């Protein structure tokens, strides 16, 4: 059977009344939980899992997948409006999205993120339907050494996330790496820096920390200067991005989609790394990098496109290798297992209807999400008209519930408050929080893959250079590291001439 016949068969499955309903339900639920910080897609999918026991396997996956990619649409909303990342992958969106909202461009930021998400999501599905089997072999080429170098490259990008001082950015990066070592040693299981707290054995929860560092810190800062409220005067007209904006960022959306798609194929943290990477690339390529961090529309478009494309392509390792790349995909894995379907290299032959039905539903789901999210923009922007003294209380309550729901524990609420105060202090002394977060996510991955590589190679560091992909990644990291230095020398020479 040809590709188009397969896909047509998939659409027949996905367009049946019940599957269309489940697709819409998933998309709506996904948007809703994406907007709420804390309660992420994995928890929601877990709650709904018992419901899927009685559903057709393909309907179950269509609904759960809808929740997962729908959350990527919703996740940017609170980042832009309130500086609270609703999802791990939308931390970067806070950087410029929130600034745009403060400049009265909330509608524009939300619009570009919805439309960018739609374009990226659709391109992603197109990529999955055409390239899934090929990409599976690409993912197979990624062993621990390749991951290790990719993560290292990601860390180098932290340089581009620091708004003002590179030195401060690096300091925060190192601090993040240190915090990432809290918990059990990944190889021998020794507890490190847990100070006797059992709760710290699994390290510090990243979502909770991000809510504190961004959300709570933001509120503390705003309460300090009451006149700040004036800034939230948002013009309701000009909600959607203009032609001018599109000229600025169509290429960013495209680059973000491609980057997100390929990084998303790799199991483990794909969506998060890709959003950071897309932001770094845009800042690097921009002729006016100083606009980034001050409300650059490309700084919203690229990472949003990247995290959507990545969430779509993260289905590839599940459907073709049986490897769940993140917690949400793991829950979808469970849903299939309960029905006795084991995803893996044989899925495409044994259950073609399931494979193509799910892919077809993603085309439909993305279109539904765009239709759902564009009208919502108006509503969200109006919300900013609520006086900040009321809004702040609501936001704190939502954050507390969100932090509690991550692990059902009050410990996490305490952690969020702690990091809120820490984030407030960081701002007072103008230290950027995003390199800290990036390093803290990537640190444990770096450590684990480094150890795996070295154990497997018998302690031989050449393993990183002998493998073509890891060598190329290291080279890229090296170049990235050197650019600020070269730039500085270049400038000096220019001056002296």
């Amino acid at each position, binding site marked *: 059977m040809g590709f188009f016949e397969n896909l047509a068969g998939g659409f027949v499955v996905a367009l049946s009344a019940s599957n269309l309903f489940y697709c819409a339900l998933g998309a709506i639920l996904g948007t*809703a*939980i994406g907007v*709420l910080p804390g*309660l992420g897609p*994995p928890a*929601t*999918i*877990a*709650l709904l*899992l*018992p419901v899927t*026991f009685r559903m057709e396997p393909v309907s179950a996956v269509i609904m759960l997948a809808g929740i997962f990619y729908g959350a990527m649409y919703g996740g940017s909303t609170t980042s832009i409006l309130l500086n609270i990342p609703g999802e791990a992958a939308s931390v970067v969106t806070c950087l410029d999205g929130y600034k745009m909202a403060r400049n009265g461009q909330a509608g524009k930021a939300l619009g570009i993120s919805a439309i960018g998400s739609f374009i990226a999501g659709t391109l992603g599905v197109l990529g999955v339907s055409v390239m899934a089997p090929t990409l599976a072999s690409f993912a*197979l080429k990624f*062993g*621990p050494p390749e991951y290790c170098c990719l993560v290292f490259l990601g860390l180098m990008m932290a340089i581009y996330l620091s708004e003002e001082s590179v030195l401060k950015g690096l300091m925060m990066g190192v601090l993040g790496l240190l915090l990432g070592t809290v*918990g*059990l040693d*990944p*190889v*021998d*299981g020794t*507890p490190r820096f847990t100070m006797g707290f*059992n*709760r710290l*054995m*699994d*390290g510090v929860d990243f979502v909770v920390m991000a809510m504190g560092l961004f959300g709570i810190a933001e509120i503390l800062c705003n309460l300090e200067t009451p006149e700040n409220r004036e800034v939230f005067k948002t013009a309701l007209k000009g909600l959607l991005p203009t032609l001018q904006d599109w000229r600025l960022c169509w290429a960013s959306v495209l680059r973000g989609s491609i980057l997100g798609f390929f990084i998303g194929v790799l*199991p*483990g943290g794909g969506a998060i790394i890709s959003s950071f990477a897309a932001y770094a690339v845009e800042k690097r390529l921009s002729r006016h990098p100083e606009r980034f961090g001050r409300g650059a529309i490309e700084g919203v478009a690229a990472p949003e496109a990247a995290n959507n494309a990545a969430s779509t392509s993260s289905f590839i390792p599940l459907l073709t*290798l*049986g*490897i*769940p790349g993140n*917690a949400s995909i*793991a*829950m979808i*894995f*469970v849903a299939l*297992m*309960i029905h*006795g379907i*084991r*995803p*893996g*290299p*044989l899925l495409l032959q044994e259950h073609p209807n399931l494979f193509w039905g799910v892919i077809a539903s993603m085309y439909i789901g993305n279109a539904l999400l765009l239709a759902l999210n564009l009208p919502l923009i108006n509503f969200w922007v109006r919300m900013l008209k609520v006086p900040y003294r009321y809004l702040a209380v609501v936001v704190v309550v939502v954050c507390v*519930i*969100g932090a*509690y*729901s991550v*692990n*059902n*524990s009050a410990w996490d609420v305490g952690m969020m408050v702690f990091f809120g105060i820490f984030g407030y202090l960081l701002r007072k002394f103008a230290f950027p929080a995003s390199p800290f977060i990036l390093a803290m996510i990537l640190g444990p991955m770096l450590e*684990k893959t480094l150890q*795996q590589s070295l*154990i*497997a190679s*018998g302690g031989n560091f050449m393993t990183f250079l002998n493998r073509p992909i890891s060598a190329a990644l290291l080279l890229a990291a090296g170049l990235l590291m050197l650019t600020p230095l070269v730039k500085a020398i270049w400038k000096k020479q220019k001056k002296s001439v």
Partner: protein
Amino acid sequence: MKRKWIPVITLTLFMISMPLAATAAEEKWPTRPITITIGFSPGGGMDMMGRLLSEGMGKSLGVAMPVVNMVGANSAIAMDHVNKQPRDGYNLFGISSAVSTFPATGLSKLTYKDFGMVGIMFGNLATFCVAYDSPIKNGKELVERLKKGDLTGSNSGIGGMWHVPQLIVANALGGKFKAVPYTGGPTSALAAAKKEVDFSTSDLSEALTFIKSKMLRPLIVFDDKPYVLDDITIPPITDFVPTMKGKIAGGLGWRALGYPRGIPQDRVNKLIAAFKSTMASGTVKEFAKKNLLPLVDATGAEADKIFEAATQT
């Protein structure tokens, strides 16, 4: 969105019902949701077990039984949390055989003395696999190389369910290997297929898709009898290491539901009855069959003994 409030509502109900629970007549139990805390992430074998039990036992007891994932430290964090809850039977814990390594690894002081068993649901079949085109072609060659001590082997975590059988085999042979931890059974199996390591240890079901698509070759099962998988017969470890005959039981992994000791016995009995009826259901039997999981179905005191034996080996 409504579900966001469930923890809050549960908590409120919990607080209101605390004074009531003390005076309520014992025959009316349970009257509110029973939480099953699982110390592993969603999607793993333990999580799936929890969800199957939640569905079946919840129906039989007439209350909801939400599964809560509290990940970390090979489930020691979750175990500690459950241990701190009131002894009213409303908090259960998913016990995997990895718990029996806690005294050795120092992750927790809690043992079979602190936790009793409702029942053991699934056993598992630790399977040693190599890449399909690996120079190691059979169990005998693998054992020789383990004795020589120059192999790397993947598992799902140090002290975890698949590291234990690796250690037992290596010790029995007087050999060694370098353990490389991955993030779960399927990933551990894939590592051998990708030749990142020389052999992998995971559940047979986790390696199955790679075996069928000729990426992995199963060489040994950690059991005392061979396993027949369609046209492949996988020999047991006892064929190669005769000294292990009769000593397998303590090292075999299992997945079970437990409770912190101190709960009134009639409540434990109700839980055991619900567990038994779930195990007898078609859903569980079919799930076990499709996923190649051996059903154990040991409950109460019988299961306690298996837990105790595992901790002592």
